[in-house]
């Protein structure tokens, strides 16, 4: 029987500091064993438990898209014991992972509709996976217009800057970037994400909204989406909670009768409105 | 005791009616015999639920941290009052120092000891004078109350909470211990090997539920050393070294701060003896610095001050 607590070995192929504050590092992991690679099937929005032996595990959303083969990408915010270790680990080292875990974004529900993606700060990882998935030639036709609003405190704190430039040049995606504090080279918008959303006012008609970011951003963005008449059933968010097992056993990440690790991390606002506010 | 209870209710009613306090923390009867439960009273009528008896075993000062924004009246025994004084010295009450409703303590009955003295489940226990009437399904016995006191109460030298703002009951003549706390003496008479065996045997039952920590008014650190991940001082499993580490550090953190109330030991579901360690430290502090926790409201705890005249003999 498969032991769901045993990590599979990955090799850190490439690591790169993403942001000017040097607190975010993107890791590109390759599979050590061919069979693991073949059996690893995921959808955007799922996460893994990254394991550093001797330190422990940390749950991280998969930032790469299933359409990108041969590696998995994670962007790590340096905060606790494990994430600090993930910042120091050298290329070529072994890192364990358990996953893919969680439900992921409801890809099928998005099909045939417009997609509005709203992200803030370093919570852009699985959103990047989602957008990259639908930008892939094989999947682009599945959704109609894609609009991405992505904000950070300052330009240097935006993730995946090269890719954002590339997205900007595309004509099958509308990208709006915004910062709280601009610098001299900044060409995007200046302002908080909720205000930018209000300003560009995307239509809610036949549109799904996915929103990930710091709690304060979510708190103020949600009413704006309501004002744009997005129904609760078509607003999705990915929650973060302290987690250990990642498979619905250890108990700590429940919100009401649902577990963020197993039944989430992606929930619709219709679901969340029925649960206690334990998040 | 009935008189004390009556006065306690009257005083509480008055305090709440005159809005001198927002909340009174006291003891109430609840579902188990030989026990009481902490109760939080906000209305004058609520005072009727207060009780006073030999089962009022919690140190209610432990709740004061939770209610720092309210004006709180708290029912305290001699030992509990000392904890509040110690907390006050540690500047734990920046907004409203609690109002101490002191009760002269007749010393508490050790429920675990009583249970061992009878066969079968105890369903009812009442005090009558010096006697404790204990009833079960097929038995009824009367026990001498003083034979069943908690170790910490047996050696109590401060039954009257002189520090209290309101004192209920007549001050009693305090005994002064000639030699030492009995549980400390018992431990000290052992050889070093026997002491270690005893300590290890006791701590081996520890579940790390931290009831001892949570029951103690002095354990209020925002992050206890056992919970810190950076740095990680201690592992979280049940290895003998981790259990020993927890119990030694817990006891040491109490040096010069412990009032010897024994709430830690009473809270332990595994009946682990704890007070022989803290009482030993209390005794050392008394011998070295002439200091007893919470007796003089202004005296700073010796381990948080420095005096060139301090004893140094133990530094080698």
């Amino acid at each position, binding site marked *: *029987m*498969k*032991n769901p*607590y*045993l*990590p599979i*070995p990955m090799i850190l192929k490439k690591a790169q500091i993403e942001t000017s504050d040097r607190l975010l590092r993107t890791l590109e992991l390759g599979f050590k064993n061919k069979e693991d690679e073949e059996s690893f099937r995921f959808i955007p929005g799922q996460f893994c438990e990254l394991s550093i*032996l*001797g330190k*422990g595990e940390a749950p991280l959303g998969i930032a790469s898209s299933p359409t990108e083969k041969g590696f998995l990408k994670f962007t790590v915010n340096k905060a606790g014991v494990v994430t600090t270790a993930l910042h120091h680990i050298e290329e070529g*080292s*072994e890192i364990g992972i358990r996953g893919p875990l969680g439900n992921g974004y409801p890809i099928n529900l998005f099909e045939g509709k417009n997609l509005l993606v709203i992200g803030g700060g370093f919570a852009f990882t699985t959103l990047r996976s989602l957008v990259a998935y639908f930008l892939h030639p094989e999947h682009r036709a599945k959704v109609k217009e894609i609009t991405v609003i992505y904000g950070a405190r300052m330009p240097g704190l935006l993730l995946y800057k090269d890719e954002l430039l590339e997205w900007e040049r595309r004509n099958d995606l509308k990208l709006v970037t915004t910062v709280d504090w601009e610098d001299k080279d900044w060409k995007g918008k200046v302002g908080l994400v909720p205000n930018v959303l209000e300003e560009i006012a995307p239509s809610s008609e036949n549109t799904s909204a996915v929103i990930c970011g710091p*709690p304060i951003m979510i708190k103020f963005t949600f009413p704006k989406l309501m004002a744009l008449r997005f129904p609760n059933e078509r607003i999705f968010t990915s929650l973060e*909670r*302290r987690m*250990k*097992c990642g*498979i*619905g*056993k*250890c*108990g*700590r990440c*429940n919100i*009401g*009768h649902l577990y963020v690790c197993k039944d989430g991390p992606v929930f619709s606002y219709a679901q969340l409105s029925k649960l*206690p506010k*334990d998040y | 005791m009935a008189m004390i209870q009556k006065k306690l209710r009257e005083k509480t009613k008055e305090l709440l009616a005159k809005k001198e306090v927002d909340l009174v923390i006291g003891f*109430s009867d*609840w*579902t*188990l015999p030989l*026990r009481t*439960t*902490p*109760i*939080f009273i*906000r209305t004058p009528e*609520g005072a009727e*639920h207060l009780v006073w008896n030999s089962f009022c075993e*919690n140190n209610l000062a432990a*709740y004061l941290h939770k209610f720092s924004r309210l004006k709180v009246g708290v029912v305290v025994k001699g030992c509990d009052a000392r904890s509040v004084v110690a907390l006050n010295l540690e500047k734990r009450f920046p907004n409203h120092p609690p109002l101490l409703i002191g009760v002269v303590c007749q010393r508490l009955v050790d429920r675990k000891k009583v249970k*061992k003295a009878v066969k079968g*489940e105890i*369903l009812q226990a009442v005090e009558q004078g010096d006697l404790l009437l204990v009833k079960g399904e097929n038995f009824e016995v009367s026990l001498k109350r003083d034979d069943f006191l908690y170790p910490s109460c047996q050696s109590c030298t401060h039954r009257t909470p002189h520090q209290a703002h309101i004192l209920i009951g007549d001050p009693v003549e305090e005994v002064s211990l000639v030699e030492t706390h009995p549980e400390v003496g018992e431990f000290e008479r052992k050889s070093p090997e026997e002491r270690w065996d005893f300590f290890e045997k006791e701590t*081996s039952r520890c*579940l*790390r*539920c931290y*009831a001892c920590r*949570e*029951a103690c008014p002095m354990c209020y650190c925002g992050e206890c050393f056992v*919970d810190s991940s950076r740095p990680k001082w201690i*592992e*979280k499993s*049940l290895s003998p070294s981790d259990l020993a580490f927890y119990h030694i550090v817990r006891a040491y953190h109490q040096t010069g701060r412990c009032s010897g109330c024994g709430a830690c030991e*009473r*809270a332990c*579901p595994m*009946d682990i003896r704890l007070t022989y360690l803290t009482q030993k430290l209390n005794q050392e502090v008394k011998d070295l610095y002439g200091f007893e926790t919470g007796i003089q409201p202004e005296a700073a705890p010796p381990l948080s001050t420095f005096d060139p005249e301090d004893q140094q003999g133990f530094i080698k």
Partner: protein
Amino acid sequence: MKLKLDKKNFEDFLKSLMEEYDLYAPVQPVEGVSVFKKIEQPSEVNLTQLVPQKPAKDIFFPQSEVMFCYEMAGKQSRMNSMEEIKRERILFGARPCDIEAISIIEKIFVGEEYTDVYFLEKRRKTTIIGLGCNHPLSTCFCSSAGGDPFLRAGSDLFFIDLGETYFVELLTEKGAALRKNRFFKEVDPNDLTLVKELEGKAFEKVGYSIPVEGIEKRLDLMTESSFWDRVHEKCIGCAVCTYLCPTCHCFDMVDEALNNKGQRVRNWDSCLFPIYSLETSGHNPRPTGRERTRQRLMHKFNYFPKNFGRVACVGCGRCILYCPVQFDIREALLYASAKRAKGLKRKFR
């Protein structure tokens, strides 16, 4: 199949079990404290305490358990999973509530998608000998919580204390494997009558007074009730109720390492500890005792029933008996039940 065992052969019987199995049973490290432990000598077994402090879950889901060991060599590592149990086990003297709790924990540990191999391995390799409760305590409310003092479900063999002898029922295939034990004898017809009598008395004593049935629906309406504002006040936030609870199954996973060797360990954890849900950022989704107490009670009586169709409480009464401040789960249940709410409001100011 029904048999009996003379009590004078009890220790020899245990010895005979130990020839083929690792035996686990209640022992008393000191008077007044009882835990389940691996037995070295039959004389250690002590059944005098009806409800041992540590529940039998400790045998299947130990408080502290090594999940796997590892060794690191340069950038490579080797892991060795520790789930395998070498010898078959017998759990003797667990009460029906504890045994029922094992099957409750099993619901979450043995899932459709993921199976907790550590739990399952122990579950599979353990034969459970249950022991009926002739004299339930006043804190017992198993019958209200869906069990009873003589519930056989979950046991492979079931013992009933008849004074001089134990009445023995072999209930499963695993249990039947012991039928040839040389100490078992045939039963007297009188014994059956005696069993009925004992059962009747115990059922009557334990009663059905705690309104557990329908609690899930009642609690649905109470998520934001002011009840939570007060009920938690006396809770000091220790883990007595959750660690001693036979159905509580939360755990933490930690690494313990020295130089290049280490192990990943899981330890019981408690939803009543503030650190349990505290996130690295400093945000705590359950910041006060109010949310934590609500989590404990709602998980048992609302969330768990929603997912598994049964309350996560077996009415053993441990959380009542051993709570340092007498938080009484029964009173909370009575409060939540409309019938008694009025009378109890007085007490829960």
